[in-house]
């Protein structure tokens, strides 16, 4: 097992990883920018190293500073959290070149799934259903037009090096396709340094359903069930549920079996999430995230499995020690991503948190680095807390959610809590009646 783990991240996930390290009895190193010097995980850290000024590029994305911090503290493993360098294959390679263990999948798999076209090709070759679309990058406008008319409009133009909802353009007809292609390529180049784009059929009312998997060094792959992440605004998830109100256990098992078989064949290891669009009873693979995800807690609540701890154990060469048949799905979990934003305009609201009170009780979990006196800075993303509830049934989970939202007090900054209060009360949400477009319509309905 590792002697010391460096946590290359910040905020709530740094605290999350630190907790897992603590449970395993492994000392950890917190790296931080000057803006995060008083962050909770830094205060609780066994050791901390300031790695740069506030901008992420000079701190949390600063490979040299992070590797240097690992060297001077004698860390033998690095957990990258999510975001930042967690899906940077070059960083993973450099970690390994320095004789440290990168807690995550291999650089080769990070690279494979980071190229969205390649990811689809590999998944299709192993029997995972796809969204109909192009199997290679589009270089030719004429070819694009031909494919688009075969698929049927509307079509979605996506950046091969994109992901996470970024770098996408919809073309509703042949007239729009040419100009949207040019636009998409320019945005892809600017955003990801790579202008390769591909086409997919545009699904008009899908749900976003993803599957959490774990795989160990010996090739054993299990899934921790699905998460329904359809409640999104501008392609950013705001609320997630485990399991999906739209799936039956049989559908989950069927999808899970196909996915774990495919990942076993490609030799994937550590944690990962496969994202699908689900419409009319059909699953369509869109991309795979080769890292821990923000919403992992809901899967933890329904399975009782600590995903971060498993990541560490797997990276240290330990066997999972259990198979799919040993995993029980119990109850229903919901997570709200509380952002430091105005709940109507979504304008960022950085500032000093004068008072903070988290809710508690059976089946109520809050993952947050906030504390009274902490400062939410403008340099990083606006997620400040994840409120998670778990109960035996979905209706009970929702009944547990609403009071917990109201009890969670963050004074001094604006947060999106009032929006979650309204979502929890809405008839559509209570009925599980939503798709990826629902939240934007819900939000616009009050504007």
């Amino acid at each position: 097992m590792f002697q010391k783990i460096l946590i290359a991240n910040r905020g709530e996930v740094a605290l999350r990883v630190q907790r897992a390290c603590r449970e395993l009895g492994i000392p950890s190193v917190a790296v931080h920018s000057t803006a995060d010097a008083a962050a909770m995980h830094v205060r609780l850290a066994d050791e901390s190293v300031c790695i740069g000024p506030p901008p992420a590029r000079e701190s949390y994305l600063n490979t040299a500073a992070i590797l240097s911090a690992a060297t001077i503290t004698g860390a033998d493993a690095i957990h990258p959290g999510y975001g930042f360098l967690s899906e940077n294959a070059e960083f993973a390679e450099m970690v390994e070149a320095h004789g440290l263990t990168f807690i995550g999948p291999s650089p080769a798999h990070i690279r494979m799934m980071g190229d969205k076209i390649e990811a689809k090709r590999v998944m299709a070759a192993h029997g995972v259903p796809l969204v109909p679309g192009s199997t290679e990058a589009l270089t030719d406008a004429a070819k694009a037009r031909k494919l688009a008319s075969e698929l049927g409009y509307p079509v979605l133009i996506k950046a091969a090096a994109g992901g996470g909802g970024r770098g996408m353009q919809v073309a509703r007809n042949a007239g729009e396709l040419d100009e949207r292609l040019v636009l998409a390529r320019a945005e892809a180049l600017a955003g990801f340094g790579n202008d390769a784009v591909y086409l997919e059929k545009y699904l008009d009312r899908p749900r976003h359903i993803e599957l959490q998997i774990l795989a160990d060094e010996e090739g054993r792959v299990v899934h921790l069930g699905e998460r329904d992440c359809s409640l999104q605004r501008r392609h950013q998830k705001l609320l997630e549920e485990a399991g999906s109100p739209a799936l039956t256990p049989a559908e989950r098992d069927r999808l899970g079996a196909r996915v774990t078989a495919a990942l076993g064949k490609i030799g994937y290891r550590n944690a990962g999430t496969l994202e699908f669009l689900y419409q009319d009873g059909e699953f369509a693979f869109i991309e795979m995230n080769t890292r821990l995800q923000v919403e992992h807690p809901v899967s933890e609540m329904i399975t009782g499995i600590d995903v971060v701890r498993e990541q560490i154990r797997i990276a240290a060469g330990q066997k999972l020690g259990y198979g799919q048949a040993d995993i029980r799905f119990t109850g229903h979990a919901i997570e709200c991503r509380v952002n430091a934003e105005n709940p109507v305009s979504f304008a960022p609201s950085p500032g000093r948190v004068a008072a903070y009170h988290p809710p508690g009780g059976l089946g109520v979990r809050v993952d947050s680095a906030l504390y009274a006196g902490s400062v939410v800075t403008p340099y990083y993303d606006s997620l400040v807390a994840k409120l998670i509830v778990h109960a035996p049934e979905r209706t009970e989970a929702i009944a547990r959610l609403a009071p917990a939202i109201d009890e969670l007090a963050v004074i001094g900054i604006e947060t999106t809590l009032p929006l979650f209060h309204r979502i929890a009360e809405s008839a559509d949400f209570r009925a599980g009646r939503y798709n990826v477009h629902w939240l934007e319509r819900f939000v616009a309905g009050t504007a």
Partner: protein
Amino acid sequence: MSGLPFDPEVIRALAALLKETGLTEIEVAEKEGRIRVARQPAAPASLTVAAPAAATSSAADPAPAGVPTSPIEDAANHPGAVKSPMVGVVYLAPEPGAAPFVALGQEVEAGQTLLLIEAMKTFNQIKAPKTGRLARILVQSGTPVEYGEPLMILE
């Protein structure tokens, strides 16, 4: 005149009594019922920062008011402090056994190499940001430093 179930004059009188005496709450019970009048104290309760104690990393704790600041904080706030621009290991001499780049009390010029920081097997020269006299050396050769850590003080 009022349709209220109580006499508003009683409330007014009780409120005036609160103000006059500085009390925050009065409750009066009679056969007909009970009235309780309460008010918030003028000054809100002060919020204590409820952060859990950190067992180590004392350097990261903000100094409570009235406690003298630590030498590290004094140095970091000194206008002539030369702070580390990177994470790495400090070396005060160009190589083991050689004379250090600079000595205490020495007059250094802007741009003059003061020390090396080794990071990722690369040695980086750290130069004086301004001309001045080397008043303090805060680090030892072979020790690690973090970003922003004060290395030397020029006056």
